[in-house]
């Protein structure tokens, strides 16, 4: 900003912006209320009574635990793969100019730029052509592919801010390439990688569209929820799971934000 003075906003604008933010947040807050309702059969508002019994019921449901653990496993492995591939790609793209550099960044962004259903049906037709049976690894394959981009975005932004002269200085002072990576590059990009990893985890943990095409009989937590949305069995359990999912995804996002907030580009702006 150059020479602009600070003025207060017109009232109409303030009201419209506030309404917009309320529109974004009220529906999510509503989930928290419904997790405590005593009503079992319908979505009645206001809740006829409040109870915490559904937390205990949910805790004792093995299907919820199985779905949760599958989701966490898939998200962890996809995140690790995405961290390795995304960092390598970001390092290559930001350190050097080479022929086809734009194509590489387009290739990384494509899985998330095209609608998820295309990634899903593409993987599915590839599996069907290659006669690969659905398994844990087919889910990971899909997830890692679109998680690369969030790690890549975070790492590229950080590499851009990290001056190349530090690497040269390290080399001049006698460090070899590996030492430079370990003691100069890595500490500089560590928080960006951590933030990217958390976002990748959150993305994978929540993904449903691609997963419906790449999972066989296995249920990740989002697939479990989708089943419950289409054919509700026990609505209060769904309410509790929904609330827990909101809380579980909230933490990595907040952490990713705090890890990168000093930078000029903050993590998560490109989902």
């Amino acid at each position, binding site marked *: 900003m*150059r020479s602009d003075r600070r003025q207060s906003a017109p009232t109409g*604008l303030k009201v*419209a*912006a506030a309404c*917009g*933010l309320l*529109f*974004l947040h009220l*529906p*999510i807050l*509503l*989930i928290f209320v*419904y997790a405590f309702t005593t009503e079992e059969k319908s*979505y*009645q*508002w*206001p809740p006829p009574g409040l109870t915490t019994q559904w937390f205990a019921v949910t805790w004792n449901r093995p299907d919820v635990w199985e779905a949760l653990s599958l989701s966490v496993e898939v998200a962890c492995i996809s995140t690790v793969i995405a961290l390795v*591939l995304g960092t*390598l*790609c970001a*390092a*290559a793209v930001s350190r050097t100019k080479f022929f086809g550099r734009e194509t*590489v960044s387009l*290739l990384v962004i*494509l899985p998330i730029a*095209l*609608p998820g*259903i*295309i990634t899903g*049906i*593409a993987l*599915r*037709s*590839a599996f069907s*052509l*290659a006669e690969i049976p659905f398994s844990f690894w087919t889910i990971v394959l899909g997830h*890692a*592919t679109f998680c*690369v981009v969030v790690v890549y975005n975070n790492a590229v932004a950080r590499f851009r801010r990290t001056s190349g002269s530090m690497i040269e200085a390290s080399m001049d002072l006698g460090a*070899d*390439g*590996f030492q430079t990576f370990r003691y100069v590059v890595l500490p500089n990009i560590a928080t960006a990688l951590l933030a990217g990893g958390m976002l990748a985890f*959150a993305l994978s943990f*929540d993904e*449903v*569209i691609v997963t419906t*095409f790449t999972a066989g009989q296995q249920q990740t937590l*989002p697939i479990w*929820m*989708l089943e419950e*949305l*289409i054919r509700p069995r026990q609505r209060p359990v769904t309410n509790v799971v*929904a609330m827990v*999912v*909101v809380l579980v*995804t909230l933490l990595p*996002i907040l952490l990713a*934000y705090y890890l990168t907030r000093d930078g000029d580009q903050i993590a998560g702006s*490109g*989902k």
Partner: protein
Amino acid sequence: MTITSAPAVDARKAILPSSGGVRGALSDSFWRKPKLLLLLMLLPPLLWLGIVYIGSLIALLAQSFFSIDEFSGLVNHELTLKTYRDLFQPSNLDIIVRTVTMAACVTLASIAVAFPIAYYAARYARGRWKALFYLGVMLPLWSSYLVKIYAWKLILAKEGILTWFLAKLHLLWLVDAWLSLPVVGGNSLSVSFTGTFIVFVYVWLPFMILPMQAALERVPGNLVEASSDLGASPGQTFRTVIFPLALPGIVAGSIFTFSLTLGDYIIPQIVGTSRLFIGQAVYAQQGTAGNIPLAAAFAVVPIVIMGFYLWGAKKLGAFDAL
């Protein structure tokens, strides 16, 4: 850092003597041949994305040129345009037109709702408020997609909070009048196109706000002042200075809302009518119908539409705003 002539190499050797050991040798050869290092860094991600992703896209394209044998239900692996002929049946064209219309409406509504938030956050919010606005957009963006849809199922249900709230305001007749309209109406909001539309706008809104805000932040404040110094009214300043400069950001946001609406199949399935969207058609064809070729052909439609959309967006400079 390329070494071109032989004396330079000798000088380099004198300055940087070889380090010992395998690790040292490896490190030295990376330093002497940056291209090798670059290749080694690029190879794993390119192999992964090339094989898994581009390979799958090619498989998808290939499938769309196969056809299904109507009697046996097996995929016939011979190249043919029959599946595309099936795609252009009137009932399928309806699905495509319906989806594109919905995507356009959702995009326009998102622009209208997102603009005040982006404008306030970019031009007025400072310090703590700025962070608050940022998190206020980021948290809904990253909140679970299914939970957001579920929340709207709760809100739009007949016994839900919206009906209760409107009943308190004595405005229920308004909803009933709206629901009695053709096309947008239905039995209740949760089984009408209006419901689908609201949920789409809600779920994709953050994708519109962020690029819009980024573009508005890049509009220099002194241009706005110059405009008003030169006698433009606030409305004129907005139309002739702020809006044209923010347009690339708006187009960038619209890429997301448009593309995401084109490909979604879960929202119309959970909140909406029984009339299909492209995504649902893809899902139904590959699942219950077992017609992967037609599903693939359907999936090519959003790719083609987005191809044209991105080409237009590039002309408007939207990629610099991403």
